[in-house]
Every structure is written in structure tokens, then in C-alpha cells.
């Protein structure tokens, strides 16, 4: 019984994975290009304007990403809390200094 369950579930799993892989090859997106990032230069000053947990941009290896919607979905609470904590700390210190700093994280 357990052996049959193992065999059938494993076969069903590989059929589902193969189906997903095949679908992704043949699938033609309706609005291709609409979600692609625009080519533009973002200055450190512009980046520094998006530094709250709800509006969080990050410079990662030369590209700027908007992590605002992803941040709540990160599986690690520690990692998520660390980012939010750092954003708050930076905002606190920036309000007391004249030099703006850019959040850059690899």
C-alpha cells in the first residue's frame, strides 16, 4: 500500500513538473514587455527617498529594485525585521545629520 502510494505520487509529481516546464516554454505572455523595467538612471538622492518599509527601494549590484511588495512576503522574519529595523535606524540618524546615505545591499 505504502509502496504503491510512493510510486503513484512520484509519477504524478514528475508529470506535474514536466507539465509546468512545457507550459512555460510554449506560453506566450499577452502583454509582454509591460512589466519590464524602464532603462533609467536613479541617483543616490532619489534612492534615499524610498526608505520606509512600505516604500523600499534597494540598490543591488548596480540595479535598483522596488522591494515594497516583496518585503512582507519574505519567509524569514529575522531578515525582514532586520531590514525594517535598519530602515528605521537610518531614518532616525538621517534626521539628525546633514549627509544622506544610500542603502546598498548585495
Amino acid at each position, binding site marked *: 500500500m*505504502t509502496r504503491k502510494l510512493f510510486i503513484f505520487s*512520484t509519477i504524478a509529481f514528475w508529470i506535474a513538473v514536466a507539465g509546468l516546464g512545457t*507550459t512555460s516554454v510554449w506560453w506566450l505572455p499577452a502583454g509582454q514587455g509591460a512589466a519590464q523595467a524602464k532603462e533609467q538612471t536613479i541617483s543616490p538622492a532619489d534612492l534615499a527617498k524610498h526608505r520606509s518599509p512600505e516604500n523600499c527601494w534597494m540598490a543591488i549590484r548596480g540595479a535598483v529594485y522596488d522591494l515594497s511588495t516583496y518585503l512582507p512576503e519574505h*519567509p*524569514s522574519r529575522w*531578515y525582514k525585521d532586520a531590514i525594517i529595523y535598519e530602515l528605521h535606524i537610518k531614518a532616525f540618524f538621517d534626521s539628525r545629520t546633514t549627509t544622506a546615505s544610500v542603502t546598498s545591499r548585495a
Partner: protein
Amino acid sequence: MPSVNSPSPESNRSTMNRLRFLWLPIVVSFLVGAPVFWAFPEGLRFWRATAIVLGWVGCGLLLASLLLMVREVRLAIWLGGLERMTLWHHRSGVAAYLLLLLHPLTLAADGWQESPLLAWQVISPFSANWPVWVGWGALLLLMLGLSTTFARHLPYGSWRWLHGLLGIGVIVGFVHVLLLGISMAALLATLAAVLLLVWRLIRVDAGCAAKPYIVNSVHPVAQSMVEISLRPLATPIVARAGQFIMVAFFHGPHYRGCGEYHPFTICATGPGAEFSIGIKALGDCTQQMQRLEAGVAARVQGPFGEFLAERPATPQIWVAGGIGITPFLAILRSEPLSQPTRLLYLFRSTADAAFLDELQALAERDAHLILEALPTGAGIPNVEKLLPASDLLSGKECYLCGPPALIESLSRVLKDRGVGEQNIHFESFDFR
């Protein structure tokens, strides 16, 4: 004299048994529930939250499966016996595998809501993403390990090493969890998995929990079967007749043992904490054990099992198939019976009938014992003809010991003839 309302020793024992019966599901529920509670996702889309919960339930079941493969005497007593632990080890392992197969598929279902391309990218092993690579590695190791687990034709030595792939798969799986982001739940679960694996490797596989013994004497008792007497070299195990132990034999003056732990029933206890076991040639290693000699070093783990330990005062029917006679022989050798007992001893041919002369002598001396010894030939006998009719089975406790196919056949016929499941007791020795 006890008052009318005070519980009898039998009812106390029964309450204890019920409590012990509950411990195992409680422990498994805790190991599954704790990480899910700790890492329960909040504010996520349905499919993504489902995927995370499935992953954690799978991890909890893997932890339970690891705990249940640890062979410790106290743990086995606490969780209702080694046989029950092995059954739940298998069940929780397979349940974990099924849920972990669904984990990537539900992640893909979450991506599918945006586009089929994203659904594939989330789980694609071709994406440059360490957590995904490691996740796939863990799943493939679990798949490979389980496929070899179900390959019963493999020799036990090869099977045991290939079964170890599952342990590696579990650790790689927890590395996948850690790569997704270190959290307290992930750290504790990984630590628990490593500790349980190390515990099993050191205490059980390396034999650190085993006691040193030496072979005292060897007597052939039937075709391809010997009775071995073992003498302790240090603190002995405290065992009752009819319990079973795990024994590995090593080297002697002219003997080279395979060093694998196999289960054997204690068929007699003697002075100086000596005991004897019956060994039938059922595989490569037990075939080799037929050539055992006095002076061979052995290591013993246990004792385990309570198959015949708490027999009620009601009339009983014992059915033994082949080597399955040893627990019944152990009881008959240790003490006279206190309840009417009919022993049905099934063997292939007279040459395979181990201990038959001794059993006949015991039956002549003990008025409570009726012995029926029957050669049945090769294969599973027609048990419908061998077992008593329904009216003769009424109110009797049935104890069965023998090959798994025989036990299954006997249990089915007994149930068909109205014997309650709680009145059928057996031990199957299936620890693969």
C-alpha cells in the same frame, strides 16, 4: 484488602497502557505543530502560505521519523514498543515525502496566478538560485532513499547504506530551509535533526548503547537453525523470557561476523545473566551465523517487546510459524502456565521442527498446555482449516508469531471468525 472502588492492578496497567498508546501521537503532533506554529506565515497569498505550511509540516514529520528510528529501551517503553515506533517511523516518513512533493507544486501554483512562466521559474532547477538547487537536491535524495527502502530484494547490508540517503536528504532539506533565511524555527529544527541522526549513528549503528557479550555455546536445533547461549562480559541487560534483543556478532577464533544488528527472541534465561537465542538462516548474515562458535564476540541492544508479558487469565490460543516458536518456548521454559493454552506449532517439515521434542515433553508435564504440531510444507498453509471454529475461539486471547504473510493470513481469518482486534496479539520483527 482493597475497597470496592479502588482500581485493581489490571485496571491500573490498562490505564498505563492507554497513556503509553497516546504518547506517540502526542509527540508526533508536537514535532509537527511546534514549527508550524512558530513559522506560520501571515498576510501571504493562499497558495504561498499553503506551500510554506506544507514545507513545515513535512519538516516536522521528518523530525518525528528521525526520533522514531532511535532504538533506546526507555524510549521504546515510553512510546509503546519498538515495533510500533518502526511502523510510525515509516508512516511519518512517507507522509513527509508526500507533503514535500506538494511543497514546490503549491509554490508554482502561487506563481501561476501571475503567469505560467513565473510558476516554472519559481521551482525551475535551472534557475541560478542556491535555495532552489538545494531544495531539489533534498527532494531527489528523499526520492532515491525511499525507492531503495521499498526495494525488499536488496541484501540487508546494501539496503541499510542506501536507506542512509534519507538521512542525508533530511539534512540537505534543512539546509534548504536555512538558505531561505535563518529563523529560530529553522535553526532549532536543523539542530534537532542533526542531533537525532548523530544519536542514532553513535548509539545504535556504532553500537555504543550495546552491551558486550560472548558466545558461550552453540547447538543445532533444526535444519538451518541454531540455539546460541550468550554470556555477559560487563553489566548485563535485564531481560525477561520472550522479549527480543538486537544482536551483532563480530569475530571469534575461526569466525568472521558481519557485525550487523538483527532481532532475536530470548528463548531461555540462565544463571549469571546468561540467555539463549534461536537463529534461523533467513538471509546472508543469519546464514553465516549458523557457523558461530564459542568465543565469538557479540554486542547486544535491548531488551525490547512485551508480546507475552501481560497475558490475562483467560484461555489462550498460541500460533507459531517456524522460528516464531521461540517466544512461546521462552514462556514455557520459564514458568508453568496458569491458564488453559492451546499451542499450534506450524513448520515446513519435521527437519524444520525446532525444539519439538522439548515442547512435547513440556506439554506432557503441564496440564494447561495442549500442543498441536503440524508440518505444512512450503508456502503459506491454509489457515482456515487449521484454526478452531468460531465458537471455540469465543472469549480467547490469540497470540501469533511467525512470518508476516502467515500473521496477516491468521489475523484475517480470526477477525472473520469474530475475534476482536484487541484480542489478537502479534509481533512481526519487520524493522526494515
